[in-house]
C-alpha cells in the first residue's frame, strides 16, 4: 500500500488495520501527531487527509491509501507549494500558522498544539479571515470532537489564529 505523506510517496509495511497514528509515528518516524485518547475525542493526533482534518488514532492506514497526508512536519512545504516559493525561500519559511504560534507564545505544555495547528491550517485554507465565532466553532464543533487543551491555552490559540490570518492575508511574511 502506498500513501503520500508530506508530498512524498511512502510504501507502508504495517497491516492495513493499523491506525494511521502508529504508522506515522513508528514506521515513518513522523512524531508530530500524538496519542491522546485513541477515541477521536481530543484532537491531538490530527492530520490533514486530502486537506481535511481527521483523527489518525481511529483511521486505519488502509483508508489513507492513495491519499495525501499532511502532518506538522509538512506544513512549511505545503505553504511553499501554495505560494510557489523558490526553494531558497521555502527553506527558511515556516507556515504562517507556525510563525503565529511562536509569535504569540501559544503553547503551554504544548502537547495538544500539533493538532491545534492542523485544525488552524484547515480552517484558514477555507476561510482566510475567520471571525471569532468561526474560530471557536472550528475548534469545538467542526470535527469529530472538540480539540481539547488541558492547559487552557484556548485564548492564546485564538490570538495565534488571528495573527496567522493576518500573515496569510499579507502574503505570509512575519
Amino acid at each position, binding site marked *: 500500500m502506498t500513501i503520500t505523506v508530506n508530498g512524498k510517496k511512502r510504501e507502508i509495511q504495517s497491516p492495513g488495520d493499523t491506525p494511521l497514528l502508529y504508522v506515522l509515528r513508528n514506521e515513518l518516524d513522523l512524531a508530530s501527531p500524538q496519542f491522546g485518547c485513541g477515541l477521536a475525542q481530543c484532537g491531538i493526533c490530527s492530520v490533514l487527509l486530502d486537506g481535511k482534518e481527521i483523527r489518525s488514532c481511529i483511521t486505519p492506514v488502509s483508508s489513507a491509501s492513495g491519499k495525501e497526508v499532511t502532518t506538522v512536519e509538512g506544513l512549511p512545504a505545503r505553504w511553499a507549494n501554495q505560494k510557489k516559493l523558490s526553494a531558497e525561500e521555502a527553506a527558511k519559511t515556516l507556515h504562517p500558522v507556525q510563525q503565529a504560534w511562536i509569535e504569540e507564545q501559544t503553547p503551554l*505544555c504544548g502537547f495538544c498544539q500539533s493538532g491545534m495547528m492542523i485544525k488552524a491550517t484547515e480552517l484558514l485554507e477555507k476561510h482566510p479571515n475567520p471571525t471569532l465565532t468561526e474560530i471557536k466553532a472550528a475548534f469545538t464543533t467542526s470535527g469529530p470532537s472538540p480539540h481539547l487543551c488541558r492547559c487552557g491555552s484556548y485564548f492564546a490559540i485564538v490570538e495565534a489564529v488571528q495573527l496567522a490570518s493576518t500573515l496569510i492575508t499579507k502574503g505570509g511574511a512575519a
Partner: protein
Amino acid sequence: MTTVYGAELTRRGFLKTGGALVVGFGLVKTEAADGAIPRNSLNASLPESFIEIHADNTILIRTGKCDFGQSSLYTAYQQIVADELDVPFEAITTVVAGDTDRTPDGGGTFDLLGRGVANLRKVAAYTRQAMLELAAQRFQVVAKDQLSVEAGVVSGGGKRVTYGELVKDQNLKLTIPVTGDLTSMFGLVVSGEPPMKPASSYSVIGKSFKNSIIPAKVTAQEPWVTNVKLPGMLHARMVHPATLGSKLVSAGQVDKKRFPNAQVVVKGNLVGVAAPSEWEAIQAAQQVAAATKWSAWKGLPGEANLFRYLRQDADWKSAKVNRSSKSTGDVASTMAAAAKRHSATYQMPYMKHAPIGPTMALADVRPDGTVMIHTHNQNPQALRGQIAEMLGISTDQVVVRTYSGAGHYGRSNGGNAGAEDEAVILSKELGRPVRVQWMRPEDFQWSTQSSAGYADVKIGLDAKGRIAAYEIDHYMPAMQDDRPIGAVLAGLPTMAAPSEEGSRLNSTVNGNSDAWIYEGVLNLEERAHGTWQVGQRESPIAVGLRDHSMRTPGQFQQNFPREVAISEAAALAGSDPIQFRIDHTKDERVKNVLEGLREESGWETRPAPHPKAASTGAAAVRGQGVSVMFRAGSYWACACQIAVTPATGAIAVEKITMVVDPGIVVNPLQLKRQVEGGSMMGISQALYEEVAFDESGVTTQDWLTYPILKMAEIPEIKVVLLHRPEVGTYGQGSEAANALAAPAIAGAFLDATGKAARRLPLRRAYVKELLKA
C-alpha cells in the same frame, strides 16, 4: 584556592584551548538516616554543575527542575540568573533540565520561582563574586568593591575584562556548599549567604523574553518523551486489575495465532503485555485482558454516597487536627452573641490531573543491573530514589532522563507519574527496553486524583453587619500518595501508604493552606482534619482511591468554602462583596488587588443578589462574583460575570478578570499566558470536573465522562499584572490561577439566582436541582 563567601574557587590546571569556570557543589551534610542507602550519589568531582561560564562568553545553566508548560526554566530562570550574574539574557545559550545524571539539585517542580529557583539564583550570586575575585587577581586590585560588572564585562581602575577572558585557557572550579537529600521531595539546598542584587538594579527581569523551546514544539523538532525510541524496544500495554481492590486469579494467555510476537508478563498482581509492534501490543493486551480473571471487590462508597461516607463513616480522629496559627479570639461566645448567622457545608469532588496524553515511560534495565528511565516527570531525583527502593539497588545505578510531555499539574511532584515503575518491572523481566503507554481509560482509572473534601463553615455577623466570628473546619483525605502503583501491584518495596504516623509526605494529617487574609475578623477558628484515602485500608491490595496533590493542592479545597462563605456573608450583611472583603482585611496588598479588580472588571458596586435575580425561567439571568487568594507570596483577585439559564441549568462565564500582585513580575508575557491558561482550567474545574466512581473503582474513563472546558466556552478574559518590585519576591502563575474561578462563579451564581452554590462542579443537572430547592 580562594574562598568566596564560603565557596571554594580552585584552578585545576591550564588548557590549550577553551577554558571554563564550572560551578558545582560540595555536600556539607546529608539528612539521610544512619544505615539508610546513601541517597546523595552524585559525585561532586564529576562535571555536574549548576553553571558553566565558557571562554566564548556563553553560559550554560542546569536545574533539576523540569518544564511543565510554564516556560519558567527557559524564560524566568534564565532572566533571574542573567541578572544575578550581570550578563545579557542571550549569553545563557543552554539550559539543561531534569536529567538525574546531568543536573544537580533535584527537588520537585513546584513553587518554581520561590523555592524552585532559589538554588540557581544563589549559585549565580556566588559565581558573580568568583568572577569579581578572578578580575581582582588579574587587575591586581585589593578590594573587589573597586570593580563593577555590566553585561558580563568587569571594569575597574581603567581596565576591562570579559567573563570569557577571565576563564580562557583555564580549568576553574567553584565549589559551593549545599545541604539536603538529593532524592527527597525538596532536593538539595544551596547554603551560605553570598551578596544578592537588589531588585532595583534588575535589567533583564521584567522583560517579556520568548520561550526558547516553543519553536521546536511548533515545528515538530521537540524530543517529546513519546518520541524516544531505543534499539530492540518493546511496546507494552498494562492489564490493570478489574477493581481498585482486586487480586489476580489467573492471567490470560496470548492467542499466538493472532499475536505471534506478543508476550505476557505477570508479577504479583501486575500484568503487562509486550510486543515489538505497538498495534500488536494494544490488540494482544485487549485479548489478554478479556481472558484474565480477577477477584471481585466492593469497598468504596460510590460517588453518590461520598459526602455521607466522609461525614459519617470516615475516621477523622486518628490523625492530629491542625488548628490554624491564625486562629484567634473567642469564637464560641461571639458566635452565640451574633445578630445574624450563616451556617453551611461546602463540598469539593475528586478531580483528575487529566494530562491530555496518558502517562508513558520507557525503561531499560541492563544486564549489569543499571536502569535508565525516559519519562516526563516533575521530580526525577525522587523517582530515581523510588525505583532504587523498588529494586533494592543503590540510587547511583538508576538514571532518569526527562523530556517534554503532556502537563500533569502535580501528579509526579513526589516522583512517580504512573508508568515508570511498570516499564522498569517489564524491562527487567523481558531483558529488553520496554515502553509502557497507558491508554486513556487507564489514565483516568489507575492514576491518582486530587482529593475530595468538605468544609463546615459558621459565620456570625454583628449588628453592623461585620463578621464577629468565623469558624471553619476543613475535612480532606490524605492528598499525597507517592507509592508507584506498579510496585504496589507487583508486591515490590515502596514507601509506606499514607498513615497517621507518616511523615509530611505520606501523612493522613491535613494542613491549613496559605495564610488567612481577613485579619479584620477578630474571632477566628480554622481547623484542618485528615483521614486515610477512601478505600485504602479496605482494599486487599492497599489501593483504593489514591490521591495526589494537584495544581494549588489543598488550597483549592480550602479556598472554595472560605471564599464562597464570605460572599454569602456579604449578602447576609447587605454589603457589596468586594467592599465587604476590603472591610475585613488589614493587608494593604489584599486591598490593592481588590480595588484594582473593582476598577478593571466592570464591577457594579452593590450587594448580591442582583435586584433582578431569578431561579426560574428560560431567560438568562446574570450575576457577578469575586474571590481572592494569597498563595506562595502572590496575591490574586478574580471577578467572574456569568449568565445562568434556569430552565436548562446552563452556566456561561461571560467575562473573567484576574488581578495579580506577584511582587516582581519576572516575565510579563509568560506570566500573562500562565494566568490565562490557569484561569481557563479553573473555569473547567468549576463547571465540569468530577471523578465518577462506584463501589469498585473509578468509572470515569474518557473525555465524555470527564468533560473539560472547550474553546467555544471561553469567556472574555482580562489579566492585570501589578509589578511590585519593592516586595522583593518573584511571582508566578503555575499555581493559584486555577483556584480563583470556582468561588467567584459560585458568588456570581448567588448574585444571578439568589441561590447558594456550595458543591462543585456546577453541571447542568446539579444546577437545575439547586434552583428547584
